[in-house]
């Protein structure tokens, strides 16, 4: 990716987290992957001074406690946090979810494929895009 900041993965399913980690590994993405289990944890991570700010957030929607949409509402209401690009990575094909998350200014919406190779393809496209694109880094 274009910068060396970590990627934040917000995902409650342990295996899904494993899949993302392995896919990024297979793609030789060197950025660190920070993993939080739900939206609440993710907010805490983002607001904690000691943690490096992520360059990209991969967000699951269906999670306990604070779900993906609730997480988005909080983040997009925060002047600093709202600059970080967020890509939704979910099992949901509900049109409602697509519309709602794009209203909350997500950078992309990817439905998790069942086939691992397709999953790797999807991750490749995401990382490739963020290799080309500039990040809103200036703080």
């Amino acid at each position: 990716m274009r910068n060396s900041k970590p990627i934040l993965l917000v995902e409650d399913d342990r295996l899904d987290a494993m899949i993302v980690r392995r896919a990024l590994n297979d793609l030789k993405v060197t950025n660190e992957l920070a993993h939080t289990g739900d939206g609440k944890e993710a907010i805490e991570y983002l607001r904690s001074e000691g943690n490096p700010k992520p360059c990209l957030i991969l967000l699951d929607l269906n999670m306990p406690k604070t779900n993906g949409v609730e997480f988005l509402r909080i983040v997009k209401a925060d002047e600093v946090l709202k600059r970080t690009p967020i890509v939704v990575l979910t099992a949901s094909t509900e049109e409602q979810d697509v519309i709602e998350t794009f209203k909350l200014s997500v950078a992309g919406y990817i439905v998790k494929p069942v086939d691992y190779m397709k999953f790797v393809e999807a991750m490749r496209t995401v990382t490739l895009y963020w290799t080309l694109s500039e990040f809103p880094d200036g703080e």
Partner: protein
Amino acid sequence: MRYEPKNCNLKRSKTFRKSTVIAAVAVVLFILAIVFKPAEIVLTWHQAHEKWGVDELIIAALILVPVLYISLLWNWTVLHKDKRAKQEIETLKQQIEFIIGATKTGLDIIDSQFNIRYIDPEWQKVYGDPTGKKCYEYFMGRNEVCQGCGIVKALETKSITVTEEVLVKENNRPIQVTTIPFQDSSGEWLVAEVNVDISERKKAEEEMESMNRKLQATVEELTQSNNELQEFVHVASHDLKTPLRAIGILANWILTDYGDKFDESGRERVKLLVGRAKRIDELINGLLQYFRVGHTRGKYEEVDLNIVLSEVIREIAPPENIEITIQSELPTVIGEQRRMVQIFQNLLNNAIKYIEKPRGEIKVGCVEEDGFWKFSVCDNGSGIEQKYFGKLFKVFQKLESHDESEGTGIGLAIVKKIVELYGGRVWVESRPREGSTFFFTLPKKEMGVKDAKLETNIACGR
């Protein structure tokens, strides 16, 4: 209370009877005149007293006889007229009672003290003699004025009042009572009550009410089952897919990471596992798609099907050996764009899938027919035997086994659901090895279809 129609023609020829009586009286008088000879008696009496001469007597008789005659005639006429008027009133009364009886309408007249002044004979047949009875005793068997009595209100407001009553004595027969206040010749206020049987109406009302209740219950049941279905869809789209993805991907990793530890048949089995996981995923996606038709409603807008079709073809990117031709200009319809896309996507994909010939031909056409647009997608593929036509449009019905063909078998079911949702229908004509033509219709009117100039019939060469 049932009314038995009866003969209402009361008068037979009375003139005949009267003439007979007059003739008899005349005969009696004639006989008396012959027996007693009254002229002789008068003359004898006259000669004894010698007051008037014979001439005076004749004049007196001449005057008296017509006077008597005229006065008699006068009296008779007046009496006769009076009697006839009475008879006419009686006849009219009977006729009115007959008519009221026939309409099952009870009629009564009641005064301000609730005394019954008149009651029609049909009521009397059921309730008996009303003499000396108050209306509430007579009809209802009560000791006091009924609650919400129409008579009180009608007399108070001097206006027609309509109430509903139940006749306890007649097995709770429901009636509608129209109470009409009026003044008789002496100025006393009375009411006339017109009592109409409303059993049928009440029965219909009750039936309707019970039907409404049933309908309400059905709606509730449906709403609940719909909610459960929504719930299921949510579970299917997320909670089922997460473990499924885990199975598929773990199987894939086993193959990648430990493939060299398996023999050929072991590797084959894990590959099958990966494939089956993919298939379940496709089936869930298909079901979700099918479910969403009609459940999630998109924007209704003008959709130019020419544009839709060319975009669908571009997206499908048919193999080089298959040529898709559009035979006639397609109309612009009002509907959901993506549903129109789904129809053509599924029909074209289906056609492409079953063309095994070196040169495939798919023809799309549209004609106007009986207020509908009739679309056709015609291929020269493998065709379908007629006995499978019914199965074709059902969810997950495939005519080949899973290992022989791709796809979930839900595409045509989705087409059917969309087309029927828009008020059209879908069917197929086919011959094995020659090809199939899928037809579907969309109503011109309901969908607010814009005109398209196409009258040419599709000729799909077979």
